């Protein structure tokens, strides 16, 4: 593992940052999926969004777009974090398929 450059952050920090990023994304997930699309659907329906009441649009369209975006942000941000902490997979040491006992 001599060719792995010295990581910028240690593994404890890596895991703490992973948790923090996950919690931020899950907060957005909750606010969009439950807050805007269920709890506040009625008041938001008073707002017209391109012909559609906003609460209804969030529940049947907008929330799904946001969910896709959240996963994309997670994937990219974790890849960057993996590199910073030097914990990304190295091509040669990929875990082999499980042994067949």
């Amino acid at each position, binding site marked *: 593992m001599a060719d792995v450059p010295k990581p910028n952050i240690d593994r404890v920090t890596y895991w703490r940052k992973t948790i923090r990023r996950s919690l931020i994304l899950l907060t957005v997930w909750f606010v969009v999926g439950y807050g805007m699309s269920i709890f506040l659907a009625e008041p938001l329906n008073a707002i017209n969004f391109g012909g559609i009441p906003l609460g209804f649009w969030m529940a049947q369209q907008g929330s799904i777009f946001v969910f896709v975006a959240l996963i994309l942000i997670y994937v990219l941000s974790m890849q960057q974090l993996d590199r910073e902490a030097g914990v990304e997979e190295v091509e040669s040491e990929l875990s082999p398929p*499980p042994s067949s006992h």
Partner: protein
Amino acid sequence: MSIIGWTFLWVGITFSVYIGIAVWSRVSDTAGFYVAGQGIPAVANGMAVGADWMSAASFISMAGLVSFMGFDGSVYLMGWTGGYVLLAILLAPFLRKFGEYTVPDFVGKRYYSNTARVVAAVAAIFVSFTYVAGQMRGVGVVFSRFLEVSVTWGVIIGMCIVAVYAVLGGMKGVTWTQVAQYCVLIVAYLIPVFAIAYTLTGNPIPQIAIGEVLPRLDGLQQELGLGTYSGPFSNLSMLNVFCITVVLMTGTAGLPHVIVRFYTVKDVKSARWSAFWALLFIGLLYTAAPAVAMFSRFYILDSFAQVGATGMQELSWIQNWAQTGLIQTGQWSEGMSPEALLSTIDRDIIVLATPELANLSNWVVGLVAAGGLAAALSTASGLMIVISSSLAHDIYGEIINPQATDQRRLLVGRIAIFGGLIVAGVLGIYPPGFVAEVVAFAFGLAAASFFPILVLGIFWKRCNRQGAVWGLVTGLAFTFIMIVLMRAHVVVPGVQDPIIESFMGINAQGIGIVGMVLNFIVTYVVTKATPAPPQEVQDIVEQIRYPRTLSAEELREAAAEAG
């Protein structure tokens, strides 16, 4: 060419492709049979997850449910997509790093207990059978309407096709067939939606066309004295919309047949990417489904407003579906209310009937039938892998006969798939209840059993065997008993009414949320009262949190820091 001619053609072509893939992807070892040798690229796995995931309920029933429920149908749209955020962030990358064959494998090793493994395997089998019943019924509906064969024969033909590629190719055959099935189902779903969006508004993109159709639909609803389509909580209370959405999301993340798909890619990075591709591919259908729901409701109410119920009986699509008994025109009369008319139309036919009611060509109608079959068969085959691996790998290979050779394990796996299919077929011929309803219960059970102990197993090192077993059993038993009590009139023979109406206002579909919370609480309390798991188990948890393999020295450091 007639509808039946086109349907035979499309079904014939797609089934030949599935068989071709089966022959090409035969496997000869258990790694290929259970996890496709862990060589599936992320984009292909995303498609396979999409097909595995989008079942007869998504393809055939969902838009119909949304069409009849209006805003409240959002529980399915959000519930069956939002769970991927949980899966991507909380489970998929870590379970891939763990990297064995099945979900019970993780439960058994993480909770260092064969009892936990068996409980998990039995729960996986139970959830999968609940779910597969809906798929087989979907196959039956498509066959009986479009190919004019009986439901029984439809189910038998479907079983034979799945048997060929799942028994021969195991997970590898199932994966590549699912990639093909995703392509078939998404094309079949989107072509008619694009065509109808274009006819109604001049814009073919359904997600944009709804901006013009919804105001017209809401206007029509008011003209006919119905509430607005976009207004929330007319069918379900806010509490139930919330609970059902939570159950469907956490259930999605806890369903074994979805989780095992993430074992089939080569590394953690690909597992994360598969989750993204999967939701993107699923989102293509899920953002179009509300448009199908609106368009079909608009067509039905518009013809009703123009010609009334007696005039509608002259329409050819009504006559076609009346023959199957799925529209009960016998109850129609001059001057009936629009609610009464809608209640005589089976929700399951909306997607299948939409191309006909919009007067699209016969080839489109036949293609939709092939798409519905692709959706049902792909999900059924994914479930068969879970049933087979739980029986042959977890129960036979790990507990009954750990000395078995690879060849013998493979043989047992094949026999298990075959046996599972026969049970699934019987459940399809004698279906317990409606498709989406049955499927929704599988979510409650998965949410209350697997989701909490998987998440805690990864994020809480201290979580131990006693906690997990008791949590899983409590969540599962509570949810199962509550569903039976609330749905007694459907599931218990000879009972006319539900034994209890609801649990503090929460209905049978949403009750899994209570089971899940109980599972979390019991797991926490019992864990706290019992000793911490052994060091090697804590090392497993440390190990799965990082994409690359940690050295023994790094693990010792981590253990020392944890004190």
